[in-house]
């Protein structure tokens, strides 16, 4: 065993029902780290870029990193890598909980799932034993009940990953749930699972130790001790996120005038306090929750009526709240719970409803189209009803809504109403008010997304330094650095939130200890750069065009109407060329020289 891996991948062909054990190529793993990087390399090499995402030819890679489940902070993470049916480009959705760690403890580095099962199936893994079982009886179940049922059957110490009804119906907004309320949320990865008639993957390791894969368990313990000092000294990772969760951002982002309102028609919400992290804690919080091996504990466990369930993050609070003109936190909590139960992306789902509400405002969707749930701003009953309809679509409009805002708005002849990039909805930070995040959105390989280069840290929160959010200077450099570092973290199997306290030197220390390597922080950032570039080349092969690196027109031409950022627009025309220059890209794609520098010669012919 080497490089913190078991060197074991299971290839599961659902068409034939066969499981093949393959040896992980550790030279390739070393070049792409693991997780997001290695998963992308696998599907790039296997030609998934050119397949129909919902066909048997697409592949789903569930993949751990060298640190998944190991002695490192917040290391319970895995990645789902596939071709996205929402964007038609790379999808790599990250999730926490404990499922990823258990997959690693069971002795697997990754699962590659291909083909399409003849009937609904689930995969049951106990250590090196993998079996395919009939899942017909579990169709239509909510994720929490399914989790309980499958644990009842396979053991309380099993961990369950599944799709909900949205995935069964191949909604392009379907996510993959694990451990009840953790989600590989974005880019429609749940629809790919549904297209393969794969309902769930249960994993139960009988040995909880992956130390045997490490170059030195002792060295990793020492490195962990060092980096935990940073985690404990940082106010955010030591207590801030535990106290208020990510929802603490509602008041921050609104105070700088960057909280999009009513589908981004404005960017300051008068009732922000009603839906804030402070109010969530005061009225609904039961306790903080944490994923496997996580000292940060950002998760919320809240009361929804009589139920105690996973609570909303900042993003869905904003999306069901300010973005839908709604200040009723109880409605937001219920809708977030419904998203988890139906297995829907908790960002794209409410953002699509917000787009539909604007279509309704403009008269494109009429009241009679809404079947009793008018798409009025702030209508809580309609919000709840539309989540259910999108989770289990029946009518043509249900299906359209469940396909995301880009397809919905295109259908109604108003494509500019969709606040998306590469057909994926943008999250909760207005790029008119914060210049760097607009570059992140426009150039994200998986479409509108904040966690591919979270420049909100320096531009708003002051980590690691405070930048001026309103200027374009140096933002291209910051975006590139954050994108590359994030690619590293996502590939290691750690949580991005550790980066509030840790930087490239700390991740390098952990990686070197686990893998027995002697990288410098600069070399580790270059690994991230390589990953970002192969993702881009996957997109190129999938048919991405330079004009796909864009922002919705509204952000460039319609200034913010009120609040602190009144009058601002995104200056993407300045930052995007600067970004391509720092990346060594020409017109949205890496030059041959850049590919050679990064050791991506295999992509040159693409």
């Amino acid at each position, binding site marked *: 065993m080497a490089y913190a891996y078991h060197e074991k991948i299971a290839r599961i062909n659902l068409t034939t029902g066969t499981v093949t054990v393959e040896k992980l190529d550790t030279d390739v793993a070393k070049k792409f780290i693991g997780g997001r990087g290695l998963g992308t390399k696998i599907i790039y090499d296997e030609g998934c870029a050119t397949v129909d995402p919902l066909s048997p030819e697409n592949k789903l890679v569930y993949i751990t990193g060298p640190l998944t489940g190991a002695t490192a902070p917040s290391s319970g993470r895995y990645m789902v890598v596939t071709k996205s049916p929402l964007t038609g480009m790379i999808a790599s959705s990250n999730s926490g909980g404990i499922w990823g760690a258990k997959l690693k403890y069971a002795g697997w580095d990754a699962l590659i799932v291909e083909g399409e099962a003849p009937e609904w199936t689930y995969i049951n893994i106990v250590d090196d034993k993998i079996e395919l079982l009939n899942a017909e009886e579990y169709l239509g179940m909510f994720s929490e009940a399914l989790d309980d049922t499958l644990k009842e059957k396979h053991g309380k110490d099993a961990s369950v990953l599944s799709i909900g009804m949205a995935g069964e119906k191949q909604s392009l907004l379907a996510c993959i749930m694990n451990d009840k309320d953790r989600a590989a949320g974005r880019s429609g990865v749940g629809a790919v699972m549904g297209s393969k008639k794969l309902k769930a993957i249960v994993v139960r390791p009988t040995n909880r130790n992956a130390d045997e894969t490490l170059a030195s368990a002792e060295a990793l313990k020492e490195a962990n001790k060092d980096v935990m000092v940073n985690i404990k000294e940082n106010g955010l990772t030591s207590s801030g996120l535990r106290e208020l969760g990510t929802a603490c*951002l509602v*008041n921050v982002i609104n105070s700088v005038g960057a909280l999009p309102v009513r589908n981004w028609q404005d960017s300051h919400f008068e009732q922000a306090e009603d839906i804030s992290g402070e109010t969530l804690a005061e009225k609904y919080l039961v306790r903080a929750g944490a994923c496997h091996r996580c000292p940060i504990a950002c998760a919320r466990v809240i009361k929804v009526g009589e139920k105690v369930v996973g609570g909303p993050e900042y993003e869905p609070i904003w999306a069901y709240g300010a973005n839908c003109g709604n200040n009723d936190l109880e409605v937001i909590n219920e809708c977030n719970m419904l998203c988890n139960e139906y297995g829907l992306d908790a960002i794209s789902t409410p953002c699509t409803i917000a787009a539909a509400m604007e279509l309704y405002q403009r008269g494109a969707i009429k009241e009679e189209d809404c079947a009793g749930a008018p798409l009025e701003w702030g209508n809580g009953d309609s919000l709840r009803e539309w989540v259910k309809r999108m989770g289990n679509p029946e009518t043509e409009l249900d299906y359209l809504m469940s396909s995301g805002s880009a397809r919905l708005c295109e259908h109604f002849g108003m494509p500019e109403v969709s606040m998306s990039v590469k057909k994926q909805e943008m999250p909760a930070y207005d790029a008119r008010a914060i210049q760097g995040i607009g570059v992140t959105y426009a150039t994200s390989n998986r479409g509108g997304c904040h966690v591919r280069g979270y420049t*909100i840290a320096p531009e708003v*929160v002051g*980590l690691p330094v405070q930048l001026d959010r309103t200027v374009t200077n140096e933002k291209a450099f910051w975006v590139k650095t954050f994108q590359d570092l994030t690619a590293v973290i996502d590939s290691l199997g750690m949580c991005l939130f550790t980066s*509030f306290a840790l930087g490239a030197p700390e991740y390098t220390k952990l990686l070197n200890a686990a893998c027995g390597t002697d990288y410098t922080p600069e070399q580790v950032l270059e690994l991230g750069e390589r990953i970002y570039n192969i993702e881009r080349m996957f997109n190129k092969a999938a048919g991405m065009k330079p004009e796909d690196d864009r922002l919705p027109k509204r952000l460039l031409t319609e200034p913010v109407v009120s609040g*602190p950022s009144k009058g601002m627009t995104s200056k993407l025309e300045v930052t995007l060329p600067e970004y391509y220059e720092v990346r060594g890209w020409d017109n949205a794609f890496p030059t041959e020289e850049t590919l050679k520098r990064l050791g991506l010669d295999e992509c040159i012919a693409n």
Partner: protein
Amino acid sequence: MVEVRLFANLRKGREKVYFMEPDTITTVQDIMDRLNIPREEVNILLINGFHQKPETKVNDEDIVSLFPAVGGG
């Protein structure tokens, strides 16, 4: 009047909002002193939505927002 807004755990033992006469304070530091908020507990300091320093002067009708360590995504 200067409006002072406190957030997250800075609210513990304090009000959410204070209104202060502008002639009784010169800088944000004066506000923090009056409310017994140690400088190291404030991570984000905004005046009218823009990042400033404790030394920044405060004017009538300014909105001053103080946050401890917050973030997420």
